[in-house]
């Protein structure tokens, strides 16, 4: 895996939050290469900077200094609107609390990112159905989030993440709200995405069992990589 070219290149990446006269360094300035097709787990105690790092990689946050390159494109210098468009094309988000829209069915939730494309309604529906089939929820397409179990909701969220066929998936504690069995099913699904579809996955987790599924585990402590 490590022989693969780096999909993500971070150089001297630093993130500092300033409030009034006080400043807090969350990421202390380090280099990191994440190879294409890898499944990486980011671990570390609370406040170590894992989620901040994940948000920067996903284009949700910006580094205070340093550079970030994803698939050869400098992300840190993009405008807000360009960054949003870049996220829509390149990132699949998987959140701890699934973040599904409660008034939309599973199919409509998965279709949501496709509204930003030029695809027609029939093609959007077809792709959303395919994504739900990949996560094994073709029989739950018309169900609303509240009619699904936590594990099923997370699978819908994964279908939503993959419907645009992004290169990179970022997952923030994807099993944090799930029981062991559901968590294992979700991790198996992420493994499938990584191995069968060659998707790069960066996952923040506190769960050692989840980290074991990753091909690489990196640890952060006080904003620095160990």
């Amino acid at each position, binding site marked *: 895996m490590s022989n693969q070219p780096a999909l993500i290149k971070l150089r001297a990446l630093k993130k500092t939050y300033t409030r009034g006269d006080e400043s807090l360094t969350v990421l202390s300035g380090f280099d990191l290469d994440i190879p294409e097709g890898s499944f990486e787990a980011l671990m570390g105690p609370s406040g170590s900077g894992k989620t901040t790092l994940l948000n920067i990689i996903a284009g949700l946050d910006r580094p205070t200094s340093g550079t970030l390159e994803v698939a050869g494109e400098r992300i840190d210098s993009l405008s807000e609107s360009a960054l949003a468009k870049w996220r829509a094309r390149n990132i699949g988000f998987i959140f701890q609390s699934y*973040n599904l829209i409660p008034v939309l069915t599973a199919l409509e939730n998965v279709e949501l990112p496709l509204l930003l494309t030029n695809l027609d309604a029939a093609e959007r529906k077809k792709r959303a159905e395919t994504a739900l089939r990949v996560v094994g929820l073709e029989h739950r397409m018309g169900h609303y989030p509240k009619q699904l179990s936590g594990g099923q909701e997370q699978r819908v969220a994964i279908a939503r993440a993959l419907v645009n066929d992004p290169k990179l998936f970022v997952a923030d504690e994807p099993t944090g709200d799930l029981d062991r069995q559901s968590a294992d099913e979700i991790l198996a699904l992420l493994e499938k995405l990584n191995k069968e579809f060659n998707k790069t996955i960066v996952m923040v987790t506190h769960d050692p069992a989840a980290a074991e599924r990753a091909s690489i585990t990196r640890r952060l402590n006080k904003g620095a990589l160990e």
Partner: protein
Amino acid sequence: MTLTQLAAKNLLRNKFRAILTVLGVAVAILTFMLLRTVTSAWTSAADFAAKDRVVTRHKITFIMTLPKRYIEQVRQVPGVKVSSYSNWFGGKDPKHEHEFFACFATEGATFFQVYDEAQVTDAERERWMQDRRGAVVGDVLAKKMGWKVGDKVSLESGIYRGTWEFNIDAIYTSTRRSLDRSQFVFHWDYLNESAPIEMRDQIGWIVSRVNDPSRAAEIGTEIDKAFDDRDPQTLSQDERAFQASFLAMMSAVLKAIDVVSLAIMLIMMLILGNTIAMGVRERVSEYGTLRALGFLPHHIVAFILIESLLIGVSGGVLGVALSYPIVERGLGRWIEENMGSFLPYFRINPGTIGVAIALAVLLGGVAASVPAYRASKLNVIDALRRVG
């Protein structure tokens, strides 16, 4: 699914709240339409005035009277076809103390010539002409008071003391809206003979029909010229201008009604704005998710704006739909029958519908503007942290 459908689904997320809000907008629009209809009906009353009638009164105020001899001089003015004179009696039926109706004494011989839209049978007219105490009443008033031809009626007046006895000899209808169908008319001679000496041979106003309606104002000026060097002087106006001058006295009331109707819309806008803001606060994490997925701030503004506009338009359409049966089938007909002298045509003006719908759209747009702006400025990470 489209962005608009997504906004519509958001609207129905809390059905009870959405229904209450739409009903609130509908009631505000309904109230606005009713108040606007009052003002437009009031001001349009002058539009129904006869174009060929000129009203002559005391120059200072129509409360003051003119000498009866003036009528002969008015009849001599070129262009005047026929003239009739009247006195306000201010009669009230002691059995129906709270029922107001126009009650005046008039010259019987000329009344139906001046008001040719008043319709009675020849037999009724003949009976009235022969009956010194005879009265002619409008069909709407007769229906309201339960009077019929042949009834004896006693009225009291705040101007002419005592109890006055009348015989209902005729009930008139009208071929045009220019004549109030709630009037009580009786012979001027009866009033004059029974009035105190100091009040005799005085008339309240003269109504003349002219040969050429387009010269009504000019003929009015000619009438006034005839009394230029006399005391009292007169003021003649065509019936429309006469009504308009009466309406002018009510302009403060009409303005107050306008202010109230706009205040209602403003209050509804604040309520709708608060409802939208509540919905936005509840969905901050969802907006964060949408932004993370690549939706732009203007998409968030569009979601909120469409939702608010849907509420505004739904409420507006419902308010307009409700106003039709209320005004056209119920209230309007009742007002026309009972307050015909002030509001002869109480119907919804098509222009009012357009204004109401436009206001409903504006209401939705303005109410959503602040919550939509704030939602579009949300920090994505902060918004995502709101997830429970």
